[in-house]
Each structure stands twice: as structure tokens, then as C-alpha cells.
């Protein structure tokens, strides 16, 4: 694209579920520090594709590489160890642990060089005062709820916590699966505000159902439809693409706001 290093490359990846081809010969390259998005209607294959990239599904055909290394058959855990971190559509925070403990789990995994003794005898106090954790709680506005158990948080707070945990792992690539679904406008703005702070020094790939939320945020937009990529470029370019215009009404009802005629 513009000479930036590749992070994730998917090469003619196919995934079938019985007779249904959910992802059909998709090739996709994500570059370093790119802020990219994949949108598509329900069933367009975007979440399946996402699961293929992160190792939760094994492709039937094709390969996936990460920074030049073939990771097609690696477990999610091995991919995380290499710097690919994802979030889930349904939040994957731990309900019975406090906010600060959730962050601690993410943080200490990423810094596993710490010895066994430190893992065992790490006190609550030292965790709470860990500069990186404190800083993250500030950034994500979680200071007030730090000792609350996650089950008592609002959905917006849980999402913020989840993204905070993902960032604490210090990944090279941050993969966000519908991070804004089900949130109120103010919460969406606060999450995007936090993510903006990472633009430019973090590779981010977002899968979203609703384009209107992330359109301004994305540098690159890829549209999927029926298991294939039908457009790829800047948001304007992608939306101007004839095939997108044909199927776009299925993707987002706010298409008109993007200046695209709906059929």
C-alpha cells in the first residue's frame, strides 16, 4: 500500500460451515499502525474472518501469516504471545473479579518475565500501584470503579475495561470485534476518544456492523458481502464503490448520511 510493514496477511482464505461458504477466497493485508475497519451486514462473514485471523477457526483453504510468519495453525494463545490481541463481541471480562484484578491479569501476563515468587507474592497493593495499570485506569476512566466487581459494571464500563485489558497486554495488533455494539452515544464517544489516543502508534482492526460510528475514525475501510471483500480503500472510496452501493442498504441504514444513494 504505502511501503509500511505488513502485520497480518490473509491469503485466499476460505471457511465453510457445511454447505455454506462463510468466507470465500479472501485475501487481506493489514499494515503496521494502520487503523482499519471491516464492515458488512449480518452473515457477511466478517466475524468468521476475524475468528480465522485470531485463530479461533481453522481455515479450510488458504494461509494466514503474521509479520512474515505462517500462523495458520497456531492456537489463539500462541498468536497473543506474538502480539495479536483481540476483544470479543460479548465482553470477555471476568465478572467475579474486581476491575483492578482484571487489569492485573492482563498486565502480568504481558510481563511474564517476572519470577514465580513475584507472581505468588505480588501483593494487592503493589498491583494497584503498578504505574502502567494506574495509567490505563486513568486513560479509560476506570479509577472510580477500580474495586468494584465487574458484574456490577455497566456495559459501557465493561467494554472500556475489555479494551483497556487488551491494550495492557501491549499488543502489536489490536483486533476489536464490534466494540461499540449496544452502547449509548456518549459511551461510544468515550471509547472512540480512548482509541484515538492510540492512533498512529498502534495497528487497529475493527469489525463493526454499524459504519456510522467508526467512519470518521478509520483510515481504511473494507466492505464484506456474502463471504467476499467487495471494496477496500478509504471510507469514501469504499462507499463509492458500485458493488457497495448495490448492497449497502443492507449494511447501514444511515447510508444517506455518507452521501450514498440507497436503492
Amino acid at each position, binding site marked *: 500500500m504505502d511501503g509500511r510493514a505488513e502485520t497480518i496477511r490473509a491469503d485466499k482464505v476460505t471457511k465453510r460451515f457445511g454447505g455454506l461458504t462463510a468466507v470465500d477466497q479472501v485475501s487481506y493485508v493489514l499494515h503496521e499502525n494502520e487503523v482499519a475497519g471491516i464492515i458488512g451486514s449480518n452473515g457477511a462473514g466478517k466475524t468468521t474472518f476475524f475468528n480465522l485471523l485470531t485463530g479461533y477457526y481453522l481455515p479450510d483453504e488458504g494461509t494466514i501469516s503474521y509479520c512474515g510468519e505462517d500462523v495458520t495453525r497456531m*492456537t*489463539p*494463545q500462541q498468536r*497473543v*504471545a506474538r502480539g495479536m*490481541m*483481540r476483544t*470479543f463481541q460479548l465482553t*470477555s*471480562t*471476568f*465478572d*467475579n*473479579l474486581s476491575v483492578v*484484578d*482484571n487489569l*492485573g*491479569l*492482563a498486565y*502480568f*501476563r*504481558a510481563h511474564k518475565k517476572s519470577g514465580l515468587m513475584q*507472581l*505468588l*507474592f*505480588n*501483593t*494487592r497493593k503493589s*498491583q494497584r500501584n503498578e504505574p502502567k495499570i494506574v495509567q490505563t485506569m486513568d486513560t479509560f476512566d476506570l479509577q472510580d470503579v477500580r474495586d468494584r466487581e465487574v458484574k456490577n459494571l455497566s456495559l459501557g464500563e465493561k467494554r472500556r475495561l475489555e479494551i483497556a*485489558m487488551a491494550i495492557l*497486554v501491549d499488543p502489536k495488533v489490536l483486533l476489536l470485534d464490534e466494540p461499540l455494539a449496544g452502547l449509548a452515544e456518549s459511551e461510544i464517544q468515550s471509547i472512540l476518544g480512548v482509541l484515538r489516543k492510540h492512533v498512529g502508534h498502534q495497528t487497529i482492526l475493527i469489525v463493526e456492523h454499524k459504519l456510522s460510528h467508526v467512519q470518521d475514525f478509520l483510515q481504511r475501510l473494507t466492505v464484506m458481502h456474502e463471504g467476499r471483500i467487495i471494496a477496500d480503500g478509504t471510507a469514501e472510496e469504499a462507499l463509492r464503490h458500485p458493488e457497495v452501493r448495490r448492497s449497502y442498504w443492507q449494511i447501514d441504514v444511515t447510508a444517506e448520511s455518507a452521501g450514498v444513494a440507497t436503492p
Partner: protein
Amino acid sequence: MIDLSLLPSGIIFGLSLGGIFFLTTVGLSLCFGLMRVISLDQMLYYALGGYMTYTISVLTGNLWFGLVVGVVVGAVAGLAVERVVFLRIYARDITFSMITSFGVLIGGVGVIKYFWGLVPRPVTEPITVQVNLLGTYIPVYRLIIIAIALGVYGGIWLFLNRTIVGKAIRAGIENVEHVEGLGINVYRLFSITFMIAGGLSALAGGLNAPLIMVDPQMGLEVMAFAFMIVIIGGLGSIKGTLVSSFLVGQVVSLGSLFYAPLAQMAPFAIMVLILLLKPTGLYGSPLLKR
């Protein structure tokens, strides 16, 4: 009618029995909570702990040393079975783990019979001192068992709530996949849990050895109680296991004061009653499918 002067010693006996029950079942409960397996092989480590304590205390004359060796052997055996057996069946249905681990238990009992024979062996009580409590004499050894059980509960609580590894285990009890998603090696957590469980089961068997006689069937004998306790307490809950262990201990001990046959039957009646009132057990959350 019941002789009231027996009541204090009855309660202490119940508590020490509860302590043994707790140490035997806490591993079962942890293994179910994190790995969603029913680890009946814990009853084997219980018997192994008893036999190691017997052998070492005969050889060296020191029961406490035997306990330590028993714990180590139990932990190593637990780890070995986890690596060789459970690792292959985590993905399968829960009943599969129950049948497989029952096979391990039966096989292990055979090994015990091979090495130690069929005859029950007595183990000398290390402390024969008794203290006067409200007019009845209570063996100090019973009090030590209660203290050890409570100490272990405190230790597990600190481990689960204050250490990163413990928190990862608690997180895993909630959702193993998401722990994996953070890049944490859950199989290492599984191994750690099995070692803790095996060690504690062996500790229970070793502590109980002087109070009963060690015999190859001792693990099978405690199994029904272990099941009952885990179910009453609520699957996967450590606190529930502690409470129900002491509850069942009391029911057995005090029940036998009233009417001896009650001792065997009453715990089952309690279980039925509690399950009717609270199907998830005292502290159990609704049974989560992984």
C-alpha cells in the same frame, strides 16, 4: 436419651471429621470449578497419603514427616495423572472424566494392594495428650486437624484472592477461553490446580490415618461423603465446600450420639433436603456449561 456430657467431644469429633472431609473434597471442588472434570482419582491420593504416612511413620517414627512425604507424593501423582489422562479428555463430556478417573482410582487401589497387602494397618497417633474442655477430655490431635483444615482454607483463600496465579484460576473458573484469550497458558493452571488438589487429598488421608486404620479401600469409603459434600456446598465453591464439610462432619458425629445408624443415613437426608430447597447447593452458582 442423649448424654449431654458427650456433646462437647461429639462436636469436636464432628469438626475434625469435617476438617478431613474438607481437605479431601476441596480438590474435587477446585478441579470441577476450573476444568469441569470430576476427579475421582482424588480418593486415590487420599489413600496414598494414608499409606505414605503409615510407611514413613513406621520407618522413622515421625508421623509429621510422613505427612509431608504423602503431600509431595499426592501432588506428583495428581500431576502425572493430569498429564497422562486428563489432558486427553478435557474436551470430552464431563461423565467421561468421571468414568476415567474412577478407573484410575480402581487401578490405583490395585497398586496399593500389591505393595501393602489387603490387611488394614494401624498408625500410631503422634500426640496422645488430651485437654479438658467443659469437663470432657478432648484429644489434642483432633484440635490440630481442625486447625490444619482452617489453615488450609485460609491459604487457599489467600492464594486465590491475592496472587496472580490464583486470580487467573478464579478467572478460569468463570471462563477458560477468555483466560486463554489473554495469552495465559491455561494448561499450566490446570496442572497447578491438580497438584494442589492431589497434595491436599493426600494430606487428608495422612491426617486421618491414625484415627482410622489405613486400608486399600479407604478412598472408596470416603467417596460417597466427598460427593455429598461437594453437592451440598455447591459445585466449584471453596467456601461452600468448607461449610458443608463441617456440616456433614457434625451430622455424622452428633447423629451417632442420638442413634448410631443415623450416622450413615443422616447426611444423605440433609443432602436431599438442601437440594430440594436450593438445587445449586449452599454456595453454588447455576451450573455453568463450558
